[in-house]
């Protein structure tokens, strides 16, 4: 892919106090502003500021790309001790930029120059002293390096200056001035340096809709989706990597008439969300695996009480506190099965940033329509990764799908949990005349009264499960989709969530090698679109399921639900899957098939 156009990946590596992530952020925003397609992902430590490795990788392309590359073209080291192990990730004739005058006396091998390979091009610069000279502080080293990068590769400095101004908007004016000066100082040096590597920035491609192109993270897209879907209330509690949903909504939602509250914990957050849902508001919370674990009890209440609520779950490395800043897809079991009792809920998993937007909005439709909690499964890699996207022209989300009191025109007592043709009950909202009822976590009958009669529990369990079947054909929503070769193929790949980007890139590469293959993304994980998956599997000689967890939770879900074998490809390192890993497995399966 991208054989003709621009395809460059930058990796900024440093420690948490170096402003590594901020540098990556400015870089990707500037590049998106210039009109490149951007995919970017940051890796940062759980440690307190000042310690631990941070990596910000930014891939810019002119053709569509679906994931990051294994090899970076340019490595920018803000801290050699962290960046040195990553020198190998720079391709031949790629560039390595580093501090040429560290203040500490280094032992032999302690400096980047000891590690840059002959095939790579070293660029040393006096980052720290330039920062100190220009800003009287070493803190702007990251900005100095960005300036250098822009000067070296001839990137329009204005694009950076605007982003820098925007980034430090909330700070004192002097901060912006200083950082701009730091950028300019670095730029001047970069311009004067003789460029030796063959990293070339081609012109960006701007299509007709270029003016609308914007860059956002998965979490940012969720926020946008929430707002477009008319989210009324949001309750949240900070937890990596979902925190930014709270933060962004705290900033944005009030502008659209909604309310945000930071509660004292996840238990309180989901409780408040369900309380608001019960009252008729579109309500949501966002958390990660540990928060979801705390919330499962309350999610059970949502299922039992048939109260709409949306829970965005950005997965990270587990179990327990696990690896808070590392990505993983290991909360599938918890999201689909977690909680007490048979508490089926809708679980959706978008595969890219644009999908985050659509799924977020549709989650509210579904929660409302099917009167149930909806869990939207993201993961750190998707939540935090940036992609350039084109927002839709018109708001794609239905404002109100509540089957209201109007749907019930019977006599007698209002059956809040009446079993109907589509098993969805008419729901009255507090404040509505004639719809007063009680919701409880206890098993109850159609009137909402507690009942532990065996036939009642059987019937109500069936009702609560069968109403969700409607979600499989929810309008304007892709619950799964096939890519690649049509008809019978040697290798089929089933994927979900953030890993699907790598799956697509691997599948395209395999096709280039002449392997017949296709891939299917499954967005709706519960209830599972069994028929569509079975049809796909029927076409495939062998089925590969790559995912980021140890057990193969999705593979287990599929083979458990369908009784069919699949080949697992699991990785639980905390890092995203590599395209090459999937490709190698496709090759292996294709060869095995041939033999």
């Amino acid at each position: 892919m991208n054989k003709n156009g621009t395809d460059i990946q930058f990796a900024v590596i440093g420690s948490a106090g170096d402003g590594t992530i901020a540098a990556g952020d400015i870089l990707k925003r500037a590049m998106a502003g210039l009109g490149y397609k951007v995919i970017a992902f940051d890796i940062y430590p759980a440690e307190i500021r000042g310690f631990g490795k941070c990596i910000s990788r930014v891939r810019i392309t002119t053709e569509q790309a679906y994931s990051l590359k294994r090899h970076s073209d340019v490595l920018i080291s803000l801290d050699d001790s962290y960046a040195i192990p990553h020198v190998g990730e720079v391709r031949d004739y790629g560039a390595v930029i580093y501090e040429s005058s560290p203040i500490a006396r280094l032992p032999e091998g302690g400096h980047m120059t000891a590690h840059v390979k002959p095939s790579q091009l070293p660029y040393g610069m006096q980052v720290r002293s330039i920062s100190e000279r220009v800003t009287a502080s070493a803190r702007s080293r990251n900005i100095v390096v960005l300036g250098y990068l822009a000067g070296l590769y001839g990137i329009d400095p204005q694009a950076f200056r605007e982003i820098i101004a925007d980034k430090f908007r909330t700070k004192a004016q002097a901060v912006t001035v200083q950082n701009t000066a730091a950028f300019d100082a670095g730029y001047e040096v970069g311009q004067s340096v003789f460029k030796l590597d063959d990293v070339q920035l081609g012109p960006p491609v701007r299509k007709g809709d270029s003016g609308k192109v914007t860059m956002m993270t998965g979490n940012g897209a969720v926020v946008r989706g929430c707002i477009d879907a008319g989210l009324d209330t949001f309750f949240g509690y900070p937890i990596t990597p979902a925190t930014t949903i709270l933060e962004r909504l705290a900033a944005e939602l009030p502008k659209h008439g909604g309310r945000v509250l930071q509660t004292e914990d996840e238990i309180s957050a989901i409780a408040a969300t369900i309380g608001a849902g019960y009252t008729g508001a579109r309500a949501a919370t966002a958390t990660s695996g540990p928060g979801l674990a705390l919330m499962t009890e309350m999610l059970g209440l949502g299922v039992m009480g048939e109260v709409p609520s949306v829970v965005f779950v950005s997965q990270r490395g587990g179990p327990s506190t696990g690896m808070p800043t590392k990505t993983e897809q290991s909360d599938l079991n918890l999201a689909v099965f977690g909680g007490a009792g048979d508490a089926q809920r809708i679980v959706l998993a978008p595969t890219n940033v644009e999908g985050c937007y659509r799924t977020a909005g549709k989650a509210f439709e579904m929660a409302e329509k099917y009167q149930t909690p909806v869990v939207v499964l993201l993961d750190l890699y998707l939540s935090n990764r940036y992609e350039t996207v084109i927002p839709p022209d018109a708001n794609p989300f239905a404002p109100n799908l509540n089957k209201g009191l109007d749907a019930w025109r019977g006599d007698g007592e209002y059956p809040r949990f009446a079993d109907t043709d589509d098993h969805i009950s008419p729901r009255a909202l507090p404040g509505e005349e004639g719809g007063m009822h009680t919701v409880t976590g206890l098993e109850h009958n159609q009137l909402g009264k507690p009942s532990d009669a065996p036939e009642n529990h059987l019937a109500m369990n069936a009702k609560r499960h069968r109403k969700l079947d409607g979600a499989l054909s929810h309008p304007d929503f892709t619950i799964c989709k096939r890519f690649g070769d049509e008809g019978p193929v040697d290798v089929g790949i089933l994927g979900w969530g953030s890993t699907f980007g790598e799956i697509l890139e691997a599948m395209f590469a395999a096709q280039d090698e002449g392997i017949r293959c296709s891939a299917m993304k499954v967005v709706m994980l519960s209830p599972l679109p069994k028929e569509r998956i079975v049809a796909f599997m029927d076409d495939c000689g062998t089925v590969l399921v790559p995912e980021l967890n140890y057990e193969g939770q999705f593979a287990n879900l599929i083979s458990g639900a369908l009784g069919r074998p699949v080949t697992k490809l699991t990785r639980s390192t905390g890092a995203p899957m590599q395209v090459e890993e999937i490709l190698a497995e496709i090759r292996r399966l294709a060869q095995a098939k041939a033999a």
Partner: protein
Amino acid sequence: MGEAIHNVIIGNGSAGNGAAITLRERDPDCRITIITMGSLPFYNRYDLPRVFRGCYDWREILVHPLSYYDDHSITLRRNSRVTDVDARSRTITFAHNEVMHYDRLLVCAGGQGYLPEELSDYRGLMSGFGSFEAAMTTYKALPAGGTLVMLGGDMIGLDLARTLIDTGYRVVLLTNEYTFWPHRIAEDERDGFIQALGHMGIEVVDGVHPVAVEEGEAGKPARRVIFDDGGDVQGDVVMPSYGLVPTAEFMLGSGVDIERGLLVDPMLHTTDKNIWAAGDVCQIWSAEDNAYRFYYGWNNVRLMGEMAARNVTGANEAFEGLEDERLRIDKKGHIASPFWEH
């Protein structure tokens, strides 16, 4: 088994690389580190005029493939400037504050272009040709068919001048005692050689003494060289070519004897038992001349590197400069220097 002996070579030119491969051949187990201030692997500096013949990619002038260093287990440290050598503790300190230990040190740091002190204020207005980067910068500064004003000459500069004339540029040469550096020219031969320069198409201005360089006026070429008699000459690029002076400053205070360059015996051994030197950086005692001598040129320098490496690894052989260092005039009436044969 103890740790492998660490042989460190400062300098990534002909001498340093000749030394490295010789060391590797003679000791398959030792550690070899080449240190260079440049950012490129070993390339042929004498080949740099090729940029005027369309060679814009540094990979084309590399002497070895990039895998060479890995294949021979040679560590190449680029962009690394040595600021200090401590012969007592056998450590090297880099400008980037790293400290490296060596067992045996081979200084092959070469030379750098000399600029007379009286012109030092005008350094910023002059171009260089000492590295690929400098060569490309000069190339870019010179418009097609433009004029290069060369101060001095020297065999490196004159080699470039030949190429420039071949490729359609003008070269104005202000001659002086450095014009035929490093060749020693007898007084009575000089006029003949100067004439030969003219035959080659070089516009020779003899007997002037430049004292200043200025930016050209609007609409005129970019540079103006002013003489002590008030006269001047104009060109797009001014390039000083006054021969080389050894890059030996970092060795001051190391404990090794230095005059212009590192003083070595014919075995290329410095006055420290663990330090050898080779190439343009060293002044070799010549028993024949009863004087310390420099030896220049690709072949001499490479031979020195190899010889030093042999002596590092136990040989005890004296270096003798190659014969035929004399400047000649060929059949076409052009100057021919053994310095240009590499």
